[in-house]
């Protein structure tokens, strides 16, 4: 069509950049077929789940937190899952130190119980949730997401949680609510590096309301079939798979609905380097390095060439329409 309206959705610059949703589905169907085998179509669904469950071995370190396979489109990538050791030992969580091995060493001091999350601001039903109530608010799902760090590395992580939209629907945002702000824990007694001059504490992140409502945006309570390790953001964190990892705040204590774009932690620290949107985008470089490629942790060996980064981290089919008509170079 020559004339395009907003209703025709996101206009893809190059059609080859789109990862067809059908591809995922086909792969999954194939797995089901193979796993189901002679047992027939009736067992196929179960076998498919089983095949997936076997792919994610429980590390046996923390309490189990099972999640049913997610039905959300794009929520279960079939890529090789990153080793638990790497996913829980190579983290950016500056409240526990700036070296990526620091959080695993230092985060044991974090006290995750009791824990409450206050939901406030422009909502009809503000409420402070005890963590146990928040966990039970909706059915836990397992979702296998790609995680792309702004520093140029990536992982594939099986999270356990549910869509943030489930919570948002419960608290009923007012008509003028445009943004959702996530305020994370900043307790100098249990987080040794809160107070260092690296960032303004607490660490604050935010999304536009429609981004927060996208079914892929998730509240994460666990990973690898177990509760969240402290260094990964226990007891509850955000997971936004199409944005650079720092957008997904860890150890959240407050969720606030606002009408103005909140100032976020990294944006305050270096506005020219970290924009509000921070969508994964191979065509928009970080001012100090290229974002065209990435190194998959634990997979791409020392001598392997880095792999190409995908537009919206490969979630363009699910989230591209959120940014229809926006200049993503300007709104980085």
């Amino acid at each position, binding site marked *: 069509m020559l004339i395009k309206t907003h209703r025709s959705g996101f206009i893809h610059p190059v059609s080859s950049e789109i990862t067809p949703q059908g591809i995922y589905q086909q792969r999954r169907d194939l797995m089901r077929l193979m796993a189901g085998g002679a047992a027939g179509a009736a067992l196929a669904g179960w076998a498919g789940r089983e095949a997936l469950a076997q792919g994610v071995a429980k590390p046996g370190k923390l309490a189990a937190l099972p999640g049913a396979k997610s039905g959300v489109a794009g929520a279960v990538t079939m890529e090789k899952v990153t080793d638990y050791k790497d996913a829980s030992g190579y983290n950016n969580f*500056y409240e526990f130190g700036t070296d*990526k091995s620091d959080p695993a060493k230092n985060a044991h001091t974090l006290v995750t119980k009791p824990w409450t999350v206050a939901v406030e601001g422009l909502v009809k039903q503000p409420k402070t949730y005890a963590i146990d109530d928040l966990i039970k608010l909706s059915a836990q799902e397992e979702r296998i997401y790609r995680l792309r760090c702004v520093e140029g590395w990536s992982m594939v992580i099986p999270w356990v949680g549910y869509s943030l939209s489930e919570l948002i629907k419960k608290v009923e945002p007012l008509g003028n609510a445009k943004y959702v702000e996530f305020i994370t824990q900043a307790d100098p007694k249990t987080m040794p590096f809160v107070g260092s001059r690296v960032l303004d504490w607490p660490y604050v992140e935010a999304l536009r309301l429609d981004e927060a409502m996208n079914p892929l945006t998730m509240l994460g309570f666990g990973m690898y079939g177990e509760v969240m390790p402290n260094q990964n953001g226990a007891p509850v964190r955000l997971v936004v798979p199409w944005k650079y990892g720092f957008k997904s705040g860890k150890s959240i204590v407050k969720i606030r609905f606002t009408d103005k774009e909140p100032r976020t932690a990294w944006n305050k*620290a270096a506005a020219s380097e970290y924009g509000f949107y921070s969508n994964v985008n191979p065509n928009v470089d970080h001012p100090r*390095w*290229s974002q065209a490629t990435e190194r998959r*942790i634990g997979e791409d060996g*020392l001598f392997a*060439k880095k792999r190409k980064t995908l537009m919206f981290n490969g979630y363009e089919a699910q989230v591209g329409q959120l940014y229809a008509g926006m200049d993503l170079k300007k709104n980085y």
Partner: protein
Amino acid sequence: MKAANAALMHPAAKPLVFVLALLPFAWLFYGALTNNLGANPAEHLIRATGDWTLRFLCIVLAVTPLRVITGTPALARFRRMLGLFTYFYVVIHLLSYSWFDMGFDVPEIIKDIIKRPFILVGFSAFLLLTPLAATSFNAAIRKMGARRWQMLHKLVYLIAGLGLLHFFWMRSGKNDFAEVAVYAVILAVLLGWRAWQYMKKKRLQPPAVAGKQLSN
């Protein structure tokens, strides 16, 4: 200090220092072979070799002050080898970056060096260090003459500054300057001592001799 001097003159002293200086490299090499360098081995190798370059730079710059202060002239025997090890680690550092981070993609490397000023600074330091390494054998010193050789090798002070700036800039992304400050203090002390010596010498020199020297 006589005993220390004698120990340093021992025939085994030089090979021992050589082996010690190779240990970090051996450790990293072994770690890379056995896949024991953590989640991101490329990053680990690049950072560790950079760290060791800075450390060797500090060590080699400490030789002369230590020699003078402790009165152990034998320390001078190790200066050349330690300087060459600094160059060895910076070469490994550059190779690690070009290979493991950039896959030897030369146009990409050039683009990256231009895009990232801190790499440009580090690369300049490497370039400046190259003639120093290349003129470290006796024949070069003889051919150049001690004075010109020394002038050339004074470049090391500039190189130290560039190396420190490179490290500072790299860490500035995370506003994390604690480690940078440690190197800055060490280098400031080592260079400050030289400046102080120079001033002292100037003050002690009778004007006539100084004039004679100038006319040389």
